[in-house]
């Protein structure tokens, strides 16, 4: 059954009939239990830790203030800010651009390209970082000529600290852009033929149709992608951690905020600072989630 056929059958037009009573609780209860146990309770516990000292005395926001004055705090947020700026720009320009180009191809060709772009997702996480360490190691890398052209003769040179935001954006793009292209392609596919036909009749070329018709219609999805990538990108851990291992500690151990919180959480007297930084990051993620939910209206609460 084709997606379009399904949509046009108008199944959603009928009113929904929900039964009231206790049965509803029984269906959701097991999920709610786990949600509380590993979703809501740990957050509450972390907030509690962030507001107290390690002898369990209430300290108000002192842990937050103290964590800000840690010498590693500001650099970690600077690093992540730089990474996000590069990664988000690449996402907007390349994912949207590639999706528009893909849409102009025939269904089968476009599907083949989407599959290729999506393929690295299977290797996400540690695997893709490991693979990219080889890609950035002159002598081993199939991109050797590019590295030489850029003047990098060793892995250490490729991973010079100024390069890291770009390197991490490259890895994130390689393993993550494909799934966003699939999402964006799905969003573009919902634009009705009539709309595009009308634009054509009015004399709009492919370029003007893309800029003035298609882009405004998928604006919400671009917003969703940006905010989702912002929330996920602010939590960078595997990439800098593995690069730290690979460079034998030449790259700062607390390159990203998640790494800093992780280091702090393994020393008893800093436990509460770690909780404070985890809460900082969680607040960022929560704000992003709230913006996606209430501003883009992409996720249906009811109908």
């Amino acid at each position, binding site marked *: 059954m084709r*997606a379009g056929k*399904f949509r046009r059958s108008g*199944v*959603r*037009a009928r009113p*929904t*009939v*929900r*039964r*009231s009573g206790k049965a*509803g*609780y*029984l*269906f*959701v209860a*097991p*999920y*709610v239990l786990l*949600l509380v146990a*590993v979703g809501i309770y740990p*957050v509450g*516990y*972390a907030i509690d830790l962030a507001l107290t000292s390690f002898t369990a005395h209430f300290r108000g926001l002192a842990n937050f203030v103290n964590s800000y004055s840690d010498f590693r705090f500001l650099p970690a947020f600077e690093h992540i800010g730089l990474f996000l700026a590069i990664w988000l720009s690449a996402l907007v320009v390349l994912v949207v651009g590639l999706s528009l180009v893909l849409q102009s191809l025939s269904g089968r060709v476009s599907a083949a390209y989407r599959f290729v772009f999506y393929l690295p*997702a*299977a*290797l996400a*996480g*540690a*695997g893709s970082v*490991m693979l990219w*360490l080889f890609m950035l*190691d002159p002598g081993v890398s199939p991109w050797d000529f590019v590295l030489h052209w850029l003047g990098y003769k*060793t*892995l*250490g*040179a490729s*991973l*010079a600290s100024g390069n890291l935001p770009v390197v991490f954006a490259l890895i994130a793009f390689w393993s993550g852009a494909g799934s966003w292209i699939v999402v964006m392609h*799905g969003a573009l*596919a919902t634009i009705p033929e009539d709309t595009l036909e009308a634009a054509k009749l009015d004399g709009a070329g492919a370029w003007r149709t893309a800029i003035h018709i298609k882009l405004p219609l998928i604006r919400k*999805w671009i917003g969703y992608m940006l905010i989702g990538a912002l929330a*996920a990108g602010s939590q960078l*851990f*595997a990439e800098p*951690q*593995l690069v730290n291992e690979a*460079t*034998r500690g*030449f790259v700062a151990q607390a390159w990203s905020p998640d790494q800093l919180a992780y280091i702090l*959480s393994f020393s008893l007297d800093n436990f509460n600072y*770690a909780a404070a930084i*985890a809460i900082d990051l*969680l607040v960022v993620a*929560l704000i992003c*989630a*709230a913006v*996606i*939910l209430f501003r883009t209206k992409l*996720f249906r*609460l009811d109908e």
Partner: protein
Amino acid sequence: MRSFFAAALARRMSAGQAASVGLLTLVAAFFLVPIVWLVLEAISGDIGLWLSNSAFYSTAGAAIAVVLCVPAGYGLATHEFPGRRALLIITIVVMLIPTNALVLPLFLEANSVHLLASPLAVILPYGLFPFGVYLSYLYFNTGSFHALLQSARIDGCGEWQAFRTIAAPLAAPVVALIVFLNFLASWTNFFLPWVMYWSLDETSRYPVALGIAVQLSGGEVSGPFAGYTGLLRLQTSSPPSDIAFLLLASVVPVLVVFGLAQRWIGSGQVQGMGFFR
């Protein structure tokens, strides 16, 4: 749409068919065991341990996710109860929060309840899959499904019976999607097992993601190169060909699960759930 549901219900197995499937499974074992042996021999040692740990965590997580998500989404879609809307909002918010954001709070919690080195420390968080609840909610929240349920209720069908005999058999596409997405997310997760196992040197618990990290931990650089980042070369604890094999082996299970679930993932029922309006 009605015909799709009816056809899916009609497709359920009879006792005779079940017996045939049992017999075929036995014969298939004859054909498969040597191949499985071959695979196990190829991945013996550490790689086998990491892969089987990963398989255990991800499979257990996906099983929990399916068992919790499908009824929860069904309940949210077909029942009215105080707190329903709030639960839906919380579900979507948690689903939009990146998994890494919860890792340190989970670590602090696991530490306080002494679950740090336990497999449950990663399996339970993997089993929480709000996205699956939302998918299941979308799947059952269609007019045609409500109509089907309505007629069953008029015929005197009880709540549990309705779920077991109508909703559960129809849930295959959404189950496939939950299994694949959840499996992929847990399989590639790095931060959670790192925090729960790596820091404590629980090497016997390492999933494949940490096994990959092991390849990089060869101790500090000493001698003339120390301090000169520019001269640093990639040093791994195994030769590149072994690491390439490890990376490929780590991808195979994801491809297998995708292959099994693929039939439903691209199907109209899933795409038509209204993700793109």
